[in-house]
């Protein structure tokens, strides 16, 4: 398993409507963590969301790694107690190996993200 590294991005908390209508840069990955919260990586500028009270904060609080699907799914089969989405790409989040993990599943790779304070534990549990 590759070493987890900090993912630099932007955390945005705004009205759900503002996040629904936001257009993210084409090269950015926007993960909707909650109806009112999104994590965009790499970092983006503040004016992308139509909400004057939005919190737009640079963030490096997640550590993660891209993993090939076979390796990822083998690990998830024994460490994830909830059913993964079948469609691709797909975002999913929940307890994996007892840790608060966020997954971005693509056809040819899977992104594992975990709050940085749990990075060492996830590395150990994926090893």
């Amino acid at each position, binding site marked *: 398993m590759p070493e987890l590294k900090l993912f630099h991005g932007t955390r945005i908390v705004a009205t759900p409507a503002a996040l629904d209508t936001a257009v993210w840069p084409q090269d950015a990955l926007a993960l909707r963590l909650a109806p009112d919260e999104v994590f965009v990586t790499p970092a983006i500028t503040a004016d992308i969301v139509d909400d004057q009270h939005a919190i737009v*904060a640079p*963030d490096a*609080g997640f550590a993660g790694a891209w993993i090939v699907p076979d390796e990822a799914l083998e690990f998830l089969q*024994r460490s994830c*107690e909830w059913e993964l989405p079948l469609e691709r790409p797909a975002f999913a989040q929940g307890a994996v190996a007892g840790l608060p993990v966020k997954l971005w599943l693509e056809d040819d790779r899977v992104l594992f993200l975990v*709050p*940085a304070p749990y990075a060492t*534990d996830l590395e150990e549990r994926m090893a």
Partner: protein
Amino acid sequence: MTNDKSLRLIVDGSLVEFFAGDNALVALLRAGLHPSQGGCLCLAGDCPHCLATVDGVSYVRTCQVAARPGMVIKRHPSDAPPPLPVGDCPGTDIIARHIYCDVVVIGMGESGRAAAAEAQRDGKDVITLDAAAGQEVIGIYPGPLVVARTRDGMADVHPHGEIVVATGAAEIHPVAPGNHLAGIVTARAATRLAVAGIDLGRVVAIGTPPEGIAVEQAAGELVRFDGVDRVEAVVMRNENGSERKIECDTVSIGLGLCPRDALLRMGNGLAVRAVGAAARTSDIPACPRAGTVCHCAGVTVDDLESVRARGFHELELVKRATLAGTGTCQGSVCLPYIRSFLADRGESLQPPFTARPVTRQLTVGEAAASSYHQATPRTALDGEHRRLGAQMERAGGWWRPWSYGDTVGEYWAVRKGVSIGDVSTLGKMLVSGPGALELLERLYPTKVATLKPGRSRYVLLLNERGYVLDDGLICRDDKTRFTLTFTSGGSSFAELWVRDWAESWRLDVRLLNQTMSLGAINVTGPLAHELLARAGVGDPPQYLHHRTATVTGILCRVFRLSFTGEVSYELHHSVADSVTLWRRLLRLGADLGIKPHGVEALLMLRLEKGHIVVGQDTDFDSTPRRINHEWAVKLDKPDFVGRQAILRTDKVPLDRQLAGLEMEGPAPAEGALIWKGSDYVGFVTSSVFSPVLGKAVMLGWLKLLEGELPAELTIVGRPARRVPTPFYDSEGSRARA
């Protein structure tokens, strides 16, 4: 079937040859050994009589495991449970795989295969679990979840649709005196043993005879089995009441069938159905007159009589009173007889008792398969602390440096020079939006509206009963934006608390928890100004102010406050910059004698200032008045969470209060009892020997005696005094310097 002399296993330390295709039980019987010294054998995994310790794992059904060269079998003692495993236990690194499907079929006999085929024809995704193929289902749980033990570990099967139980039926065992002897087998077992080439000798059949074996049929009612260790004769009673003794080497038992429906009964309320023999009704044997009914728990017919005489007439209660049905076979042997017994005593034929997971013994490794202990988060500076030789401890829910090896030196660095500490674990939350001010006004007992941008204020967080939940800071960033801080251990709950109220009050706010995204380093000590100036902050914020600044080239929010009693600045920054900032500060302060301080030194410093630690110095019912924090509560505000409760409880005379205490000599242990004469009056919550004061200082709960807090006390047999707090720098001039 061939006899290959190279096929040997070890039974109780002796080599035993076996044939290819033998299971462990057949191998034992082939050697003339009974795995558990006696009892009717079924060869179907239903009874507890072939249990043994196999390769270090106890309670293994030897009839269900293939014999392997080198297999080590230890027979269980006949009069005691097998010993607990010692040393390395096999199977402690077992994984559980999660499998999703539409339908799961348990058992792949004729009816199971038919059910699976039917579901597949309907386009269903079907998973089959067959004990004969090494996939033994041990439980069905809500979810639904079917847990099976397989040769590759545990399988957690999650069916979207139904669970089909096709596990067939078990043969009914005999209950009569002597049923503990060796040489008794069920009819199907007799056939299988004969096919395997086991010499059964002279066989007497009771009930349905075994197929393919010449037997002497024993007519009448079973009275007892005779023999010493092995059955030598069976005694039957004829219709005329006379008894007949039949000499034999083996007794074959064909008393009917009982469905193996434990999994069906376990899945009550779930989409579980039985098919084939598992769905049949149970044959009910004649009521037993004597003998052991439940071999797992050693329950006899006399025991059933005894509990019935004491009023236990319901099957479920008889189970609980006798423990029959709670053992290894989970009622597979005893259930038909207990039902028969109660029906014979005038009760209706009661349905089988509830079944619960697990149906089979599990090793610790199997039970713990793919489970994980709760992880303790680490700050971005975790590696730095360990590199500096810190003793790491779990504190406030995080791994934190307790001490770098010189706690007193760390303490003096704060009091006399400058020190840095990792306070990244503090809760940090941003609140923004037009409803932000109203949210915080209603949530906190302080006047938030008077807080100007750039200012901070210490706050208590109360619940509706006026009890202290947490404490921290409110920092106003601008008109509609605030930063909140919480204690390390309380931040998760505090976040939920804030979110719940914001949602309940339907306020237009945005909330972002940054606890794990931001690092925080506390720069503290009389030389903190000097260090910050070297780091590029020549005009740091005033006491209880905050602003953004570049510190050693790293963007930080600088909060001026003090938990240590000395000048302190908290530098909040991206966790990506924590290590760089930490190292640069240590380098810049090297000639100032800078040292990092751990949690132990921090707790000494804060106690000298009389600062509480919520959760250590407070109880679940600590009000601001009880902890001497009424100054932090503004009752002239229209409302806030806990206000009504405080108004109400303020009318009640104070019964106890957190107080400052001091004594000469070493500090007593936290939790030490406090005495007034011979009367217990409280206990110590925090305690430390103060290097700067040269005495022990403490916080502790004291009962009021006749409306007054006692002043002269005894703690651990030594005199102590109640004194005002803070113990150190009561004017607060050092923190504000």
